């Protein structure tokens, strides 16, 4: 059986699984990166993903159009994070508590919405949608191994990958990006230049929420084709851990997300081959690894200095 692990086929499915699995993690993590660079710690990623997953699913189900579902999921994620922005940036509430509240609210809302939208649904007749097809890039997708892995994926996978250099350029090469990073470090300095700190933070939080919503929509519209109440299964939290592990920088975050995807893909492949090993231990691996990653990153290098601290103008 070990020889099964060493074939090209195995490598190919392992790596394309990695791309698929890391897509929602990367989308959510990039959103959270921007949010946290603006000094706001949004722990509501998990709840926002659930709302996005539900909205994307229900809208696609009733309109029959997956793209409308994607847009709706982003709007829903944006609205939920608008609430987060209002609580933390306008009312200056504790960001940790607000984020936890958002999680509970988002999870509850998605679950309730599902029950209202699909009454009399049991485990036998779950409503489903046809998921996104893979988008093959001409010529490139024909290259052995590399082709199927990198050039025959879901549209959102390409979007997530392309966002990495785009956001890196935004953060490090543009004035708004620099301003945002400054707000995460020293909001008073930015405020003194007459730039609206709160306005930037609203933008950052809402961008994060829209990305979380998109990540959630990927789960229902590209991966599963159905909605279950705990479909995010901790991915929102793992995305937050990826931001920490990636040291709040876009490129390391990409690799951290791919690493998590690789591990999860590996356990799926091992299960598929049928090696006798308790599958629950494999399923628990990403969560154990998250803890290890957090432990390794304990010193928190790269964390925005003002992360989690509400900016109060009158306080000196």
């Amino acid at each position: 059986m070990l020889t099964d692990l060493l074939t090209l086929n195995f490598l190919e499915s392992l790596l394309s699984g990695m791309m698929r699995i890391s897509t929602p993690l990367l989308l959510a993590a990039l959103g959270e990166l921007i949010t946290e660079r603006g000094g706001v710690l949004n722990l509501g990623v998990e709840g926002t993903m659930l709302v996005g997953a539900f909205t994307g699913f229900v809208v696609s189900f009733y309109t029959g159009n997956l793209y409308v579902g994607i847009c709706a999921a982003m709007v829903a994620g944006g609205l939920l994070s608008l609430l987060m922005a209002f609580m933390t940036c306008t009312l200056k509430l504790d960001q940790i508590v607000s984020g936890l509240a958002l999680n509970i609210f988002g999870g509850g809302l998605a679950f309730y919405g599902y029950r209202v939208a699909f009454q009399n649904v049991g485990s036998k007749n779950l409503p489903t949608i046809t998921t996104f097809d893979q988008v093959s890039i001409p010529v490139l997708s024909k290259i052995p191994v590399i082709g199927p892995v990198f050039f025959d994926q879901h549209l959102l996978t390409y979007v997530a990958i392309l966002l990495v250099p785009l956001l890196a350029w935004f953060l490090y090469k543009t004035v708004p990006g620099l301003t945002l990073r400054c707000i995460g470090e020293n909001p008073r300095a930015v405020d003194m230049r007459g730039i609206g700190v709160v306005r930037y933070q609203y933008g950052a939080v809402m961008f994060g929420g829209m990305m979380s919503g998109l990540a959630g929509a990927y789960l229902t519209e590209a991966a599963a084709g159905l909605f279950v109440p705990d479909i995010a299964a901790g991915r929102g939290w793992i995305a937050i851990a990826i931001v920490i592990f990636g040291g709040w920088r876009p490129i390391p975050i990409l690799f951290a997300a791919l690493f998590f995807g690789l591990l999860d893909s590996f356990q799926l492949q091992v299960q598929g081959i049928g090696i006798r090993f308790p599958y629950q231990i494999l399923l628990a691996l990403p969560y154990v690894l998250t803890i290890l990653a957090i432990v390794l990153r304990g010193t928190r290098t790269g964390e925005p200095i003002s992360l989690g601290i509400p900016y109060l103008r009158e306080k000196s």
Partner: protein
Amino acid sequence: MKIGTLHLEKRTHVSWYVQGFSILIALAGAFGVGALLIMTTGASVGEAYAALFKGAFGSRNAFLETLVQSTPLILTGLAMVVAFRARVWNIGAEGQFFAGAMAAAWVSMTLHDDLSGPLLLAAVLVAAMLAGACWAMIAAYCKIRFNANIIIVTVMMNYIILFLLSYLLSNTWREPGSYFMQTARFERITYLPRFFSSRLHLGFFNALIASVLVYVLVWKTSLGYSIRAVGVNPVASQFKGIQIKRTILTVMLISGALAGLAGGGEIAGLQHRLRLDISTGYGYTGIIIALLGRLNPVGVALAAIFFGALVNGSTHMQIFTGVPVALVQSLQGIVLIFLLMSDVLTRYRIRRTPHAD
């Protein structure tokens, strides 16, 4: 901020009736949004809320069942009080609840021939507390030794223990021949006594005793002083000679033990067998209960009974008006959001501006 001769002034002290008022605003707001959610189902809001109330308090048995539902919530709420007082963000009560339930199940399955009577029941509950504390200690260790983000570690631990339980329930612990992932029903001598010919079990009274003990711990002991000091100002408390790491560890152990006791109580008092669905998110609800109860044990008991009433009444509401039970989960989140927002109002007071300026 000034409006005419009035201006807003920051309160230096928020009295208990202002805090109570802010809770009332939060509840009113939550039930208002809840009404909108009910309307989406096409049911009548009045009827739905009436059914909810009737299901929770409509009869003696309904009220006792509300107390049954509130039992685990009191304990997970208390677990959060101890942790949050020190600003230690233990979001792992859900996992610690399961650790406690698993330990209680293990003792029930293995020691029922060796021990009997109160000794056996005590062993079940003590094992639950120990297991909850041990599970919490892993996260505490990551925090103390490596300065890891305790929120993420505790959340991950919640998922990990479910896989562990799922493994046990599909192998060694599984009831022989059962279609479901569950243990066999435990021996009768492992059951906690029940009262008033209802499902109300000893666990509820344990929870009340725990409330008193947590009150004494937090406000009447030097450890409680350290806990509150670390929560208010860790730097200053360090200068006062309080060992922060040791306080964090102690807080996590107590918090985990309380959550574990909640799990053990559910097993020994109510479920009598272990399944994957014994918790409906009690650990997470504990967070809201602790905040709604103002990190105060008496408040927590009241908030838990209120949430127990919502859970209990919602079944009645679903049967008679068709509004899904899931409404309660949304309501819980909305209550918390409104509570946080109405707290901002109570931070300020309206004063008449003196004529001098």
